[in-house]
């Protein structure tokens, strides 16, 4: 493909949405904004598909920084403006913590610029991992924006909302395309800004407080990131991620930047003890939760860890502690999810839990685990987006996010219940991708059996909270009492169906994904361990019959949906009584206990985090 065409595609994916966002801001009225958003969605999906094809067929795309030096200067100036903007926000919201972090970032950035930055490297670096992330952002993100066009009808501030959503999409793409750490840091902070603005969009007291909490936590991560970049310059003499050495050669204090990068990743991905901001962020409108806080932005922390996996490979204790933090987060968030009664909070805990699982995979430092991490990343983004969108549609209809209120949804909203079933099925049932990843992870655990304890407990807890929620949705009356009033808007049905189809296509094409997308990335560090032979996923220690299960799934679904002769219908048994039976759900722990557990867990994990920061010093002393 022509070089300038590639440049155009990259520009379309980064700058295109930002320009369109500006357009939305100027237009302000919803119907023309809707058309603009749909146009942007189409353009972005086309661009990302062409770019993916290019990368997968011709290999990594690179653009050296000398060619883009003007952009470099622009980014530095904008970065400074952004930091000053955060100081302003801190002053307006009376949050000293935000101000402190913003000032730290300005100071460190000034230090970096004054000490001169080695600009000899690749600024743009698009490989298979970037393709996966940008696919998630551009395809799923665009579909969520289209969904938001209808959802935001009852809110105000449309111009501002869509401007920031599209700005966010551009910034995400920018973050995954840049290897220059300073550029990535800029895009990282732009996403922080977008998150802050979108959470506080409705302007209520609670929204404003949640927004500033999110800003505090993620700015803290940003401060860790920029400090890590400064130390990176000192120890590795570069700001380019692809020039970092392989981890086996890193020792002692040189591990410090890596530790700081992991802390930044943990704040962005809301790992424990930083999970508060994500839980509070659920006050935002549902498209924001779907886009930022489940499918894309929180994946940025995971992306950073995956991008740094060559540098982390072989670092021994550091990686083990990272893995332990991930595994503990997975277990604790899964257990806490069982206790929640609000659907969005359950999904938030579920997101934190799955991200912890991916971090644990990275921490296992093996080929199978890295493969599992990439597959989990993709499938988790798809299913979470689907689940959040379904919850949004339900919330619009019944005006409540509580699981108890969703009881019997199967009768009143069959299509949306089906979407929820597919979303949960993608997380839990074979042959979908998440399930294959779970199998893969279990196989990977044989090389790291001690983490296995936390992970098996977490897998059990995951089944419990999904069964609880989905079961209540499917609690139906007898067949006689079915209503068929759906009344779900066309846009909702189309967007929900598109994401479901993307998920199913990704599952069916898992062999293709492995060969083209995942294994080439894993090969940079390890020998690929997972292959697809004759439609059977095979590792050196086990097999998973993908085709058989997919075929079986199709057959079963057809059998279930076919009309057939049923036995006589009967009412439920109620000791001989008739009439309205009420059922509810069960919330294993009281609110008090949840709060106490969260406090204890936060303290414990903070200690683990401090231990993480001490490891470089420990290594230096013992070396």
């Amino acid at each position, binding site marked *: 493909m022509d070089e300038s065409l590639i440049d155009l595609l990259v520009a379309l994916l980064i700058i295109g949405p930002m320009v369109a966002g500006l357009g939305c801001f100027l237009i302000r009225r919803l119907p023309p904004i809707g058309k603009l958003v749909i146009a942007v969605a189409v353009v972005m999906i086309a661009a990302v598909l062409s770019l993916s094809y290019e990368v997968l067929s011709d290999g990594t795309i690179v653009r050296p920084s000398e060619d883009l030096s003007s952009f470099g200067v622009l980014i530095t100036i904008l970065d400074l403006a952004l930091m000053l903007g955060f100081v302003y926000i801190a002053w307006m919201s009376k949050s000293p913590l935000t101000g402190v972090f913003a000032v730290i970032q300005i100071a460190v950035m000034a230090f970096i610029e004054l000490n001169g930055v080695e600009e000899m490297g690749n600024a743009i670096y698009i490989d298979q991992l970037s393709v996966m992330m940008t696919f998630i952002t551009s395809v799923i993100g665009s579909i969520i924006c289209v969904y938001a066009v209808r959802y935001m009808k009852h809110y105000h501030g449309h111009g501002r909302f869509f401007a920031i959503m599209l700005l966010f999409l551009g910034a995400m793409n920018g973050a995954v395309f840049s290897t220059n750490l300073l550029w990535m840091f800029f895009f990282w902070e732009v996403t922080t800004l977008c998150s802050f603005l979108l959470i506080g969009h409705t302007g209520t007291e609670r929204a404003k407080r949640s927004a500033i909490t999110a800003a505090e936590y993620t700015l803290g991560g940003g401060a860790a990131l920029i400090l890590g970049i400064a130390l990176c310059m000192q120890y590795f003499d570069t700001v380019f991620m692809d020039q970092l050495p392989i981890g086996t050669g890193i020792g002692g204090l040189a591990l410090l930047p890596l530790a700081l990068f992991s802390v930044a990743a943990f704040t962005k991905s809301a790992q424990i003890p930083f999970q508060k901001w994500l839980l509070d962020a659920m006050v935002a409108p549902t498209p924001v939760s779907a886009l930022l806080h489940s499918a894309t932005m929180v994946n940025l922390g995971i992306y950073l860890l995956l991008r740094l996996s060559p540098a982390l490979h072989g670092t021994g204790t550091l990686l083990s502690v990272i893995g332990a933090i991930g595994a503990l987060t997975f277990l604790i968030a899964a257990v806490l999810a069982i206790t929640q009664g609000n659907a969005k909070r359950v999904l938030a805990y579920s997101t934190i839990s799955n991200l912890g699982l991916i971090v644990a995979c990275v921490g296992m430092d093996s080929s199978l685990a890295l493969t599992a991490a990439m597959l989990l990343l993709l499938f988790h983004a798809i299913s979470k987006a689907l689940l959040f969108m379904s919850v949004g549609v339900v919330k619009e209809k019944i005006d409540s996010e509580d699981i108890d209120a969703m009881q019997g949804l199967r009768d009143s909203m069959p299509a949306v219940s089906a979407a929820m079933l597919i979303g949960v099925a993608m997380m839990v049932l074979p042959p979908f991708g998440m399930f294959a990843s779970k199998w893969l992870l*279990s196989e990977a655990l044989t090389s790291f059996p001690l983490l296995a304890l936390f992970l098996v407990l977490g897998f*059990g807890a995951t089944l419990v909270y999904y069964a609880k929620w989905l079961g209540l949705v499917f609690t139906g009356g007898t067949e006689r009492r079915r209503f068929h009033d759906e009344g779900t808007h066309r846009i909702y049905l189309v967007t929900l169906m598109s994401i479901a189809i993307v998920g199913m296509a990704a599952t069916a094409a898992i062999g293709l994904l492995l060969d083209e997308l995942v294994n080439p990335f894993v090969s940079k560090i390890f020998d690929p361990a997972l292959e697809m032979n004759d439609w059977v996923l095979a590792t050196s220690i086990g097999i998973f019959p993908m085709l058989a299960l997919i075929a079986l799934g199709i057959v079963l679904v057809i059998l279930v949906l076919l009309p057939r002769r049923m*036995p006589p219908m009967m009412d439920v048994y109620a000791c001989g009584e008739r009439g309205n039976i009420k059922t509810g759900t069960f919330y294993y722990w009281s609110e008090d206990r949840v709060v106490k557990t969260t406090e204890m867990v936060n303290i414990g994990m903070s200690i683990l985090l401090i231990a993480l920061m001490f490891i470089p010093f420990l290594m230096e002393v013992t070396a």
Partner: protein
Amino acid sequence: MSSVLEQAASIALWALTPVLIGLMLGLDRVITARLQGRKGPGLLQSLRDLFKLLSKKGSYVNSSQMAFAYLSLALYAIAAFVLITGSDVMTAFLLSGVGSFLMVMAALSVRSPYSHLGAHRELMQIMAVEPVVMLIVLSMGYVSGTFLGSSMDYVMFLSLPLAAAAMVPMLVIRLEKSPFDIATAHSEIVSGPYVEFSGRTLGITKLAHWFELAVMFGILLLLFDTADQALGLAIKTVVVLATVFIIAIIDCSTARLTRWSMLRFSLIFCLGAVALNLLVLYIIDLGVLG
């Protein structure tokens, strides 16, 4: 690679599994009856129960209940198939986990308080059993270096004694025996999650439960595989009979405990035992490799 004859034999074994499990359950009822000083029904009784249920028309409440019940049966049957034909044990176990998930969904699909009560108790059972058995399967994979049942090491119970022992309480839970008959609690919650099934649909859930027992017993018996086929068969038969006998004795001598004590017992003692076993093996490996 196994020969065609072996493949055919394992498929035939899978088809006969309900019969074998039915006989085992019948034996359990006879032993329980004799322990209680009465005559008892006879070995074939559980099979007669199943046939009776499958031949009655029964009733249903709504179609998602039926759908989930049939799906649960399908997944359990496939899990048993994967296990018996000697394929990946972890796949088989994860599929059976999905089967239990679907059974809970079937129980929750009806607006009946007993059904919901039973379903939530069943979820507690899943939370108690799944982690332990998953860790046992992981230990088996760790010891053998593979998850393929046909390629696993022989007599693994010599290196995994605590895992084999921890499997027995898991079987007590899954067989719905005191002290852990939590989900169905016999008549106290009117058959728990199975309350709204009747006739043929009840037969289907019973069959699904039997295939699940097949998976659990299959995992236990994999620990007792030997190189000599005949000796292996003899040992496995003895193990099954001994397990049934021990479980019957435990059943007759204990009262039902609460679900929290089941969870505590399972996740602290059983999971701890398997983890300890795994830890010891890990340390031995590290020590040997230096």
